[in-house]
């Protein structure tokens, strides 16, 4: 009976090992697919999206009216002589090492704020060239298209283009939501500092929305004037008066107009909320709006880039640590363990052999646990896995020594004693693992999570399975 139980246990270990180390293959169309979840590899093991940003050395064409004011294509009027000039996008004075360094700092801050948890950023200071490596995931393209935004925030007079407020007036920005019956609306909330609050108050007074009745009256008068066809000039004058009276501001980011508005009330609280779209119940649309609002918020909060950059390169480069290298590494680890098992078997005979079999079962469960708990495997994570194997081996070795030393009827006590002695010793390692689990930086959390799950499994598995194996 005891023998049958033992054989069953060994078969269970073989089965779980087969699932973990080989997989469960099912035919899907014309190919065999492993149904066991794959490992999630980190940037230093898998590869990275490499983005190269270079200083924009190009020029842009500007249009000037006879008075020297810059106008847009849309603002051009017939019969006026405009001149066009080619000007550099980045002024010569802006191209300094300090500005390059500041740009790198801002980009790094943006990466952090955008939730990139593993990146490498390097800069060639003389030329300002920046190379960023980020994980290749669903966020990568979004980051590439937003990371080099200048982030120039301006509130301008919609007619004269006079800059009324800029980045220096912003205290912070964040994303707000408002739920109504029609769905959820996403808002970009911009809070201003003291100077900005004061400016906003003045602007909202100056650009206040005129009473609807007044406007209507003017319009009615104008309509009447047209209908009666009394005097065409009167109508024109009336319209001009209306336009003059309703001044508007345009809010623009990097020269792109986000909204043109006037103010219904005096803005005294120092913040404005911009709707990022219409109310929606579509989850994907909502997520997109939130993502866009968060990106704008990040760009505004981190300040505008002193130098304009352009994306020069954007490609996925694989790590030089290939899958075959990882397999070889795992095989080498397995070989070392095999030697360890031989030592255990020679030293502790049957107990050593059973402990080795149990160890294999734990290793199999551990790799499955790592896959299903979504631990990202980085080089640090691989080290954590190796450490768990070492710790478990030490524990098994000590456990067997304790059992061998004890009398036959003291099995339970010797196991308890081994557990107590060993786990007291690894408390500092547990502390390190737990602290690292709470860090968002992927290589650190990879180490922490792999250690945490390893230690948790080690405690449970040895208390239940290994003990049971050795008892038989």
């Amino acid at each position, binding site marked *: 009976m005891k023998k049958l139980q033992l054989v069953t246990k060994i078969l269970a270990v073989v089965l779980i090992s087969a699932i973990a180390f080989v997989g469960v293959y099912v035919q899907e169309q014309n190919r065999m697919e492993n149904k066991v979840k794959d490992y999630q590899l980190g940037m230093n093991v898998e590869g990275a999206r490499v983005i190269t940003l270079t200083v924009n050395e190009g020029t842009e064409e500007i249009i000037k009216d006879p008075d020297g004011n810059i106008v847009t294509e849309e603002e051009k009027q017939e019969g006026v002589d405009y001149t066009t000039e080619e000007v550099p996008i980045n002024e010569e004075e802006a191209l300094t090492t300090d500005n390059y360094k500041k740009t790198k700092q801002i980009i790094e801050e943006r990466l952090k704020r955008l939730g990139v948890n593993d990146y490498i950023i390097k800069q060639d200071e003389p030329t300002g060239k920046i190379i960023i490596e980020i994980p290749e995931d669903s966020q990568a393209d979004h980051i590439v298209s937003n990371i080099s935004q200048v982030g120039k925030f301006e509130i301008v007079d919609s007619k004269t283009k006079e800059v009324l407020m800029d980045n220096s007036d912003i205290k912070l920005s964040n994303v707000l939501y408002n739920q109504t019956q029609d769905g959820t609306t996403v808002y970009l909330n911009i809070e201003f500092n003291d100077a900005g609050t004061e400016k906003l108050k003045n602007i909202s007074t100056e650009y206040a929305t005129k009473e609807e009745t007044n406007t209507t009256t003017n319009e009615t008068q104008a309509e009447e004037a047209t209908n009666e066809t009394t005097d065409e000039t009167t109508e024109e004058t009336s319209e001009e008066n209306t336009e003059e009276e309703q001044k508007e501001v345009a809010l623009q980011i990097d020269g792109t107009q986000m909204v043109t508005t006037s103010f219904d009330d005096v803005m005294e609280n120092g913040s404005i909320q911009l709707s990022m779209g219409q109310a929606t119940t579509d989850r994907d649309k909502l997520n997109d709006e939130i993502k866009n609002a968060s990106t704008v918020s990040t760009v505004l909060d981190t300040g505008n880039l002193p130098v304009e950059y352009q994306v020069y390169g954007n490609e996925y480069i694989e790590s030089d640590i290939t899958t075959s290298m990882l397999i070889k590494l795992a095989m080498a680890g397995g070989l070392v363990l095999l030697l360890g098992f031989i030592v255990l078997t020679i030293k502790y005979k049957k107990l050593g052999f059973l402990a080795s079999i149990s160890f294999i079962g734990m290793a199999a469960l551990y790799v499955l646990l790592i896959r299903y708990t979504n631990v990202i495997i980085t080089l*640090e994570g*691989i080290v954590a896995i190796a450490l768990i194997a070492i710790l478990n081996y030490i524990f098994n070795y000590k456990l067997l020594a304790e059992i061998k030393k004890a009398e036959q009827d003291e099995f339970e006590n010797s196991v308890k004693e081994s557990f107590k002695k060993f786990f007291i010793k690894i408390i500092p390692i547990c502390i390190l693992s737990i*602290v690292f689990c709470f860090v968002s930086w992927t290589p650190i959390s990879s180490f922490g999570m792999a250690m945490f799950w390893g230690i948790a499994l080690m405690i449970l598995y040895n208390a239940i399975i290994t003990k049971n194996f050795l008892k038989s």
Partner: protein
Amino acid sequence: MKQQTTKSKIIYAIIILVIILGAVAVYLKGFNFELQYQQNKMMEIYIGKEFNIADVRQITNEVFGEEQVLLQTVEMFKDRVAITAADITEEQKASIVEKMNEKYGLELEADSVTIENIPHTRLRDILKPYVLPLIIATVVTLIYIAIRYYKLGVIKTIFKTGIIAVLAQLFIFSLMAITGFPIGRFTIPIMLFVYVLSMLYATTKLEKDLESKQAQTEETQEV
């Protein structure tokens, strides 16, 4: 007991000797940084089909000789190779292009391949994210050690643990400096490995000390 103390002394003496030699090595030649962490040059070649990295390695070995060269596949279709070396001259570039043309039947012009300057990675940028979590973990660990082993003397145990952790790290960095093992992607994983083992060693030693202290106390009480 006496034998054990002598053994410990010998081990500590060896560790200190290695640290001194490591310091000298750092002073004389500095650390050897991994190619990806140095300022280097990179060129990419579009092959247009999947290739065997070993074949490209053979070509780069012929051109660069003993020099360290990093080969990486680029993009999802794995049809482009990035060749990174500390320096790539125009002659070396032309030679690689010629050999690649021969090997893969390409018609690439050396002028169409550009050599990009890749800036170095600062070690402090790599270490920065680890500083705070390691400080927190170490402080909490030291508090635990002070509480658990207070019978051995709070200051003494904290000092002992700290010394073991610091010596272990210095030892490993010294070995890297002496052997020329490159500082790079593997440095932090190795540091963490050593940190965990040094903590295990420290607590094992303190547990032993605590046991003998308790045994001593019991003996004294019995007397």
